[in-house]
């Protein structure tokens, strides 16, 4: 039984404390602990003027009894078919939803959504620094903090570029910089490279591995790309189709930097695909 952690304070009643990467190790407690979490939601009823409550809104169960513990500094990948509740899992960890059953105890978490959601009217530097601005820094201070990270993330020379001037891969880098700069100890990445072409995606996976090797963070990575999970993660969690439940936990024990063709990576990929019922093709 893991230690009960304080659940994430809501933004409205005071800001949660900010944790630097260095403060993680000393905690000893898990960065995230989910215990038997189930979550259903009503299929959103669309339409404007509703005169009486709709009776036909269907309840959809997204997650059924999911347990997951993430150690500080660990990278856990969650794979599963589309609609298996992966995004719901991240929203629970970020405090955007409450579980129907079970408990969620996480360090403050930041979401990197599927779409980069960069603000079109801001340059790359200001987009990356959004969280710093929100935390109360002046524009100049926020830019300074973001600028320090830009060279490291391979974004040098794009500081003033507006999102529409950036390629898909570069947009994701800026979105990741925004996620890092939030200062939260837990990064929740929701299919960060899902919309990229195969070659750019492979480049971005290597890029993320290199960045995380230098800048160790606790990461939960949701993806439908089994190879991505095997390449990047310490542990791969395989979820069943809706309602999502944990089918398997696959540990990937091989030093970094990893090669796509390293035996441990290939083995993890094969096992994850087998769990998803695609064993024959691997």
């Amino acid at each position, binding site marked *: 039984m893991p230690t009960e952690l304080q659940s994430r304070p809501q*933004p*409205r009643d005071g*800001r*949660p404390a900010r944790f630097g990467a260095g403060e993680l190790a000393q905690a000893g407690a898990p960065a995230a602990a989910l215990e038997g979490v189930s979550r259903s939601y009503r299929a959103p009823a669309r339409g404007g003027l509703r005169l009486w409550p709709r009776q036909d809104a269907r309840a959809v169960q997204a997650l059924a009894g999911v347990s997951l513990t993430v150690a500080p500094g660990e990278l856990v990948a969650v794979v599963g078919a589309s609609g298996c509740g992966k995004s719901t899992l991240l*929203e629970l960890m*970020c*405090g*955007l939803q409450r579980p129907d059953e079970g408990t969620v105890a996480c360090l403050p*978490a*930041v*979401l990197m*959504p*599927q*779409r980069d*959601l960069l*603000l*079109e*009217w801001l340059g790359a530097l200001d987009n990356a620094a*959004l*969280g710093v*601005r*929100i*935390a109360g820094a002046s524009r100049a201070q926020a830019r300074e903090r973001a600028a320090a990270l830009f060279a490291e993330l391979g974004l040098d020379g794009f500081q003033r570029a*507006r*999102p*529409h001037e950036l390629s898909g891969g570069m947009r994701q880098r800026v979105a990741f910089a*925004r996620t890092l700069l*939030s200062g*939260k100890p837990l990064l*929740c990445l929701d299919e960060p490279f899902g919309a990229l072409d195969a070659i750019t995606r492979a480049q971005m996976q290597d890029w993320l591995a290199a960045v995380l090797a230098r800048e160790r963070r606790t990461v939960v990575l949701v993806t439908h790309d089994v190879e991505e999970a095997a390449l990047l993660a310490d542990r791969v969690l395989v979820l069943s189709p809706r309602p999502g439940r944990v089918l398997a936990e696959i540990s990937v024990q091989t030093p970094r930097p990893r090669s796509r063709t390293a035996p441990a990576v290939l083995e993890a990929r094969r096992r994850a695909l087998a769990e998803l019922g695609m064993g024959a093709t691997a």
Partner: protein
Amino acid sequence: MNGAGARARASSLWAPLALVAALLAAWELYADFSSVQEDLLPAPHAVASALWHNGGLIWRNFAVTAEQVVLGLALALAGGFALAVAIHLFPLLRRAVYPLAVGSQAVPIPVVGVLLVFWWGFGIFPKLVVIALICFFPVVVATVDGLASVDPEQPKLMRTLDASRWQTFRFAELPAALPAALSGARIALAVGVIGAFIAETSTPTGEAYAGLGHEIMTDAGGFQTPRAYAATAVLFAFAIACFYALALAERALVPWHTRPRGETT
């Protein structure tokens, strides 16, 4: 501005000028050679002559009307924008206020014109209220839609960055809504000049120079048709000038939205 841009600008000016010249020529020929009387439709040369000989009168009335249009539109934009923001932030208000805002567009202004004067006197303010009543609606509709056009995931991202409701509005929703709000402002502006005309002709007035709308109505009834047309031509030009002034402001306010066409993300 490079050479190609300057050339493009020159050619974009050429087309509307040619069209205006052609229309004026056709009007001149029709007025001169058909049986229509000058009291009904004065020829362009008669209008130009009326403008020339009554320049001082028209100018002073124009100054009155222009002030009303600019201030009335400012009132409409400020009021419409504020209402849209309130509607966006408080969904209950949307249900309560939206039907009334729609209904307000059906109120014939002369019905309330006298009442407005009773409340606020013969000065400029009742006229500004009339203009604002006529113009605010497109601003509200466009701004509300613009505020709602933000990606539904955006508020979630903002919340995990610990943004307050106000910060989400200030950093994400407000800038996202600006282009739509300005489109609403453009529609408002297009009806703003006729709004001033309605304001002047539907509220009693006690001033020496009552504005172009008042003058046009007086002239049209007093067989001064060329002068009425001259004043109308001034309103016509003023509406166009206002529209392009707003287009310039738009380029400065929302540069990310007015990037060159054909450049997509």
